[in-house]
C-alpha cells in the first residue's frame, strides 16, 4: 500500500500551489508597488532629534520621535503629492506608529531606527496613532500629518 492515499496527494498539491501563489503575490507586490516591511537602519544619536527636512518641493524627511505620551513633531505639514521618508525611534518605552489610510506601520523602540516611505496624493489630515501599549497615557498618543489642508487657494 502506498504511504499516501491519492486524495491526500491531491490535497498536498493544492496546499503547495496555494502557498506558492501567496509567496508569488508577496514578491510581486514588493516589486510592483514597492510594498516592503519597514527598513532597518543602524542606530545613530541624530535620529533622536525630531525634525522635518525638506529635500525638494515633493520630497520630505520626517525624523519622528515617540515618547510617553506624544509624538514629536506633533503636526507635520506637507503639500499634496509629497513623498515622505519617516524615520522613527523611541526616547523611552516601546510605542507604535500607524498612519491612517496608509500602510505605514512601525514600532518605535529605544535603541532602534526604522524607516518607511509613503506618498500623500490626496489632501487631508492623516492621524498617526500609537498602537502599542506604552503606559497610563497610551490612549492620548496621536499626531497628525496635514497634507495641504485646509486647501490653500
Amino acid at each position, binding site marked *: 500500500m502506498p504511504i499516501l492515499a491519492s486524495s491526500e496527494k491531491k490535497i498536498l498539491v493544492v496546499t503547495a500551489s496555494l502557498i506558492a501563489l501567496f509567496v508569488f503575490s508577496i514578491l510581486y507586490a514588493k516589486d510592483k508597488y514597492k510594498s516592503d516591511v519597514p527598513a532597518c537602519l543602524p542606530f545613530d544619536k541624530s535620529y533622536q532629534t525630531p525634525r522635518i527636512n525638506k529635500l525638494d518641493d515633493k520630497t520630505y524627511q520626517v525624523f519622528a520621535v515617540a515618547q510617553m505620551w506624544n509624538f514629536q513633531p506633533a503636526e507635520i505639514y506637507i503639500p499634496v503629492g509629497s513623498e515622505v521618508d519617516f524615520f522613527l525611534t523611541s526616547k523611552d518605552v516601546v510605542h507604535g506608529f500607524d498612519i491612517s489610510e496608509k500602510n505605514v506601520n512601525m514600532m518605535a523602540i529605544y*535603541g532602534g531606527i526604522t524607516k518607511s516611505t509613503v506618498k500623500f496624493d490626496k489632501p487631508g489630515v492623516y492621524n498617526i496613532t500609537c498602537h502599542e501599549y506604552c503606559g497610563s497615557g497610551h490612549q492620548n498618543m496621536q499626531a497628525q500629518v496635514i497634507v495641504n489642508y485646509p486647501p490653500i487657494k
Partner: protein
Amino acid sequence: MQISKSLRKVILWELGIPVALLIIGIYHGLMQTIFRAGVLHESAFAKLDYYQGLTLHGVINALVLTTFFAVAFGHATMAFFLKREPSKKMAWTSFTLMVTGTLLAAWAMLTGKASVLYTFYPPLKAHPFFYLGAALLIVGSWIPLFDWARLYTAWKKENPETKTPLAVLGTLVNFIIWFVCTLAVAYEVLVLLLPWSLGWKATVNVSLSRTLFWFFGHALVYFWLLPAYIMFYVMLPKLAGGKLYSDLAGRIALFLFLLFSVPVGVHHQFSEPNITGGVKFFQTLLTFGVSIPSFITAFTLAASLEYAGRQRGSKGLFGWIGKLPYLDPDNFLFAYFIAGLILFIFGGLTGIVNASYSLNSVVHNTAWLPGHFHMTVAGPVFLAIIGMSIYLYARLSGKKIFMPRIVTIVPYLWMIGVLIFSTGLMWGGLIGEPRRTNLGMTYLNPKSTLFHPEWVPTTTLALLGGIIMFIAGMLFIIAFFGTVLGKKTQTGQLELPESESYLEERRIPVFDSFRPWLVAMAVIILIAYIPAIANVLKYAGPKAPPYTIDNPTPVQTSVRK
C-alpha cells in the same frame, strides 16, 4: 482505567484552579469591550485599571489556563495510552511550582504593580514577583516532560514494533516545543529582566529581549493548539461516529509542528527595527511552512467527519454535514470540538494574512490582531480546553455533569459571540482602530478632541460579541463548579475516547522516532535565529533604563550604566 488517588488529585486540581481564575480572566475580557466601546470614559472601573485588567486577561487566559491544562491533559494522555503512571513526586513538584508562580504573579498584577501586559515588553518595568512568578510557572511545567520521556522510553523498550499512540506522540512533541521555546523566555526573564527589575542592572537591550520573547511567543500558540489537535485527531472521529481518516497524517502534522513552530517568531516583529528584511522574509516562508500541518489537519478531519456522516446514513455530496451529533448532551465534547473548528477556519485564514510579510503593515497591532487570535486561541484552543476540562473532571471524580444541556449549547453560543466580536475588531482594525488601548477615554469619547466616530460601529459590534461570550463563559463556569460540587455517583475512572484509523497503515519507522526530527528542528532553528540574533546585536543602539507605567522619567537605580 483506574489511576492512583495522587494522580487523580493532581489532575483535578490542575483542571480546577485555572477555571476558577477564568472568572477574573473572562470578567476583564468583557470589561475591555465595555471600555473600548466608549460606554465608560474612565481609566478604571471598580478600582481595576483598564491595562491592569488587560494584563490579567492575557496572563490568566493565555498563560495560566493553557499551561495548567496542558500539564493535566499530558498526565491524562500518558497514563491512559501508555498504561503507566507519571511519578507522584515529580507531578506534585511541578504542581507546587506552577501554583507558587501563579500566586506571585497574581499578587503583582492584582496590586497594580505589573500592568505591563502578558508580553511584558521592556523597558516598561513590572514588580520582580511578576517575572519570578512567570518563570516558576514555566519551570514547573517543564518537569513532567522529563518524567513522561522516561515512561515513553520504558514503553518503547517493551513495544519496539508498535506504533506510538498518537496522543502520546502529540503530548511529547508539544512539550518538546514548549521546552525549547521557553528556554529563550526563561533567559529573557531570569538573565535580562529580573536583575534589571530588582535594580541590580541599570539597562536592558530592548530589541534583544523582544526577539527572545518572540522566539517563545509564537511557539507558545502551538503549545496552546496541540492539545486541541490531539483531541481532534484522537477523539473527534470517534465522537462523530466514524474513524480517523489517516493516523499517519496526524503523525506527519505533529512532526512538522516540531520543525516549524519555533523558527517563525520574527513574523511578530515585521514592523520593528534592528532586524533586516531578509531575515523577516525568510521567516515568512517558514511561517507558510507551519501552515502545512494545519492544511493537512483540515483535510484529514473533514474526511473523518464525512466518513462519520456517511456511516450515519447521509446522502449526497454534503449531506454528511447535517448528520453529525451536534446537540447530544451525552456527547457534548463533539459540540466543543466542532464549534472550535468552525472558528479555526477563519482564525487560520486571517493568520496567513498576518504572516504575509508586507501585508502585515495593513493590520499590525490594530484591532484586527485580537480579532484574528480570538478565532484561534479563544476558538478551537479555548473550547477544547474547557470541554475537556469538564469532561475529564466529571469522569475522574465520578460525578455527573451539571446542566448537561446548557453545557452542550455553551460552545455554539461562544462561537456566535466570537464571530461577532472578531468581526467588529477586524473591521475596526482595517480602519485603523488600535489594539491594547483604552479607547473609551479618548478615541471613543465624544467629548475628547481625539474622538473617532468611525470606530463607533466596530467597537459596538465587539461589545455585543463580548457580552455573548461573557454569558457563554459564565454558564460554563457555573456548570463546571456545579459538577465539582455535585455528589459522586460512580467510581472515578480515567477514560478518553479513542478513534480507529480508516486507512490501514503500517508503522513507518521515521514517523515513529523522535531523533531525526529533533536534529532537523535544531538545524532549522539555528538557520532561522542565528541571523536574527546577529542582526539585533549588530544594529541595536543603547540599552534602556526601566520605566514605570505612569512616569516618562526613568526609574533611578543606584547602579551605573
